[in-house]
């Protein structure tokens, strides 16, 4: 790394407030010569793992709301009711759709947080 580059990075580290702590840490590592090529790759792997884990939970809810309750357990649920709706019937014709809606917005919100946490969010 050239001396000029070093000065530039030091300047960024000292004066630039808009960059995240994670990026600052990477710059420090770069300056100290301890940065590895795997740094960013590891971070991305961690981000992807976190994504897969939340995806798993969301798809589980999707399956419960779209299949388990309204199809496989419908008869059991129909013994209960909300208003004039038998519960299983309500789940199939109303409840599942509401759950899908909440699920999509929850995932979008969660991922926006995750993007920021791993510093991969868009400008």
């Amino acid at each position, binding site marked *: 790394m050239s001396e000029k580059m070093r000065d530039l990075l030091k300047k960024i580290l000292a004066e630039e407030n808009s960059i995240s702590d994670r990026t600052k840490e990477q710059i420090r590592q770069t300056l100290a010569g301890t940065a590895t090529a795997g740094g*960013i790759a590891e971070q*991305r792997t961690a*981000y*992807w793992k976190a*994504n897969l884990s939340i*995806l798993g939970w*969301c*798809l589980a809810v*999707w399956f419960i709301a*779209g*299949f388990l309750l*309204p*199809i*496989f357990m*419908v*008869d059991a649920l*129909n013994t209960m009711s*909300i*208003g*004039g*709706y*038998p519960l299983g*019937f*309500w789940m*199939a*014709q*109303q409840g*599942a*759709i*509401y759950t*899908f*809606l909440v*699920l*999509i*917005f929850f*995932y*979008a919100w969660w*991922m*926006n947080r995750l*993007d920021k946490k791993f*510093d*991969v*969010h*868009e*400008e």
Partner: protein
Amino acid sequence: MDLKLMIYLVVGATFALYIGIAIWARAGSTGEFYVAGKGVNPIANGMATAADWMSAASFISMAGLIAFLGYSGSVYLMGWTGGYVLMALLLAPYLRKFGKFTVPQFVGDRFYSNGARIVAVICLLIISITYVIGQMRGVGIAFSRFLEVDILWGLIAGMSIVFVYAVLGGMKGITYTQIAQYVVLIFAYTVPAVFISIQLTGHFLPQTGLGATLSGDDSRYLLQALDGMMVDLGFAEYTTNATFSTLNMFLLTMALMIGTAGLPHVIIRFFTVPRVRDARKSAGWALIFIALLYTTAPAVGAMAMYNLVNTLYPGGVGNTSEAMVYDERPEWMRTWENTGLLVFEDKNDDGRIQYYNQGNPPAFATEDNLQGNELVRLDRDIMVLANPEIASLPNWVIALVAAGGIAAALSTAAGLLLAISSAISHDLLKGVFMPKISEKNELMAGRISMAGAILLAGYLGLNPPGFAAEVVALAFGLAASSLFPVLMMGIFYKRMNKEGAIAGMLTGLISTLVYIFLYKGWFFIPGTNLLADNASGWILGISPQGFGTIGAVLNVTVALIVCKLTAPPPKEIQALVESVRVPRADTA
């Protein structure tokens, strides 16, 4: 005001609006033509996606299907909404990050193969063309019923409008027209539903009205009354499953969900938003706008059924001696009889119409010596289109429903036509056969293929190949079994290579086509089916409509096996997958 004049006015006003938008939103570049310059606000895109998605089938047919299927109709409600979860979680953000124009382009780049791209184009064309036929038929029905013009002229009017805004504006023109069309169609759908809900239950919201007690009888719930009515006439209870086995409920719902997520004309809508996080959010907005209609539809279906049975039995359900007198039938029945979609036959010559389940005749059928069910044909589409007339709503509501039906069909047709024309001009021409084509010429090619697609769709709408009712199942089955699995594996399985992808797509496509043809006839030619299309003829009891789920599983299985036996994809492809998985890739 005269009903016909009113309909001409309302439909004419919406057409003027669409053309105005078309002139305002002309496309100047291929980027604007294919993906509206990637500058569409996520909420606006959600609304356009909803109009794109909700077709003539959703608007005209779905509530009628639910009215006759009751609980079993839920497969359509859940299948056509749950797919958005898969789309939002598994495809939209990554395909938006990839940042190109078409679905086959992703397949071609990710699997470093023009062969894979061409197979994807073939899947896309089969799916989109079968789907567009249904839309054109919807346009024809709406015109011929409401404007009482010949289907030919109805189709020509519809095609000319689509021609103007789709050829001029491409995705940009289509997007902004779809937003207007969404507003028209959602008003057209919910206004009659609200009126009817208030009439029957006193509830303003149809969603709560369906679960409420009947006006004037606080001790009886609407659904309870409906269950009782259906049982009295020899049908199954409305709120319990009677049509599909649990296995087929599951398979059909799943096939519709993964099919929805794999429909190219819906996927490309998410290429039009500026950022990855907009793609995630936009799918949610799309589902909000879709849910407005989809949570209303069950109420529309159930209330239409309730009203219909009460109209047929003014003296009480099952009271055959006081059933509706044929000569005193309401006006809307007369107009629908002219279309042939509603047919009565007074089999016992008593001048009255007795409706019941002939296959499982209730006690009164033998006691009163009936000669069979006299409501010989009742097309399910009538349930929505005649809904305002059944409930004697004012003329402007009827005119609004006509405009809404046409808006639903046109908006979906436009989205499909764009998917078809971009696959031809961008994937086949620019991608494979003429890579050196200039942007200006590609834009021209896009417009020409759009015009060609419109003519083809119009022709098929006029001469439907006799399987219009089957095409929806076919389109979803194919999308589920061919495109969705390959897109998902392209994103989530880095090791997947071109051999696996091509083998998988072909397996899904062919197995699903063959399974459907086995029961519906080869290329839907009646009489050429090899197996009987009923529960006892189905292999392992799997219905052809639900086979898309099995096709998807076969696709993945074959792809994984072939992939293990062949060389892994090159380094740069693995890097491409890495970059698609991260919203901001410039950190690399």
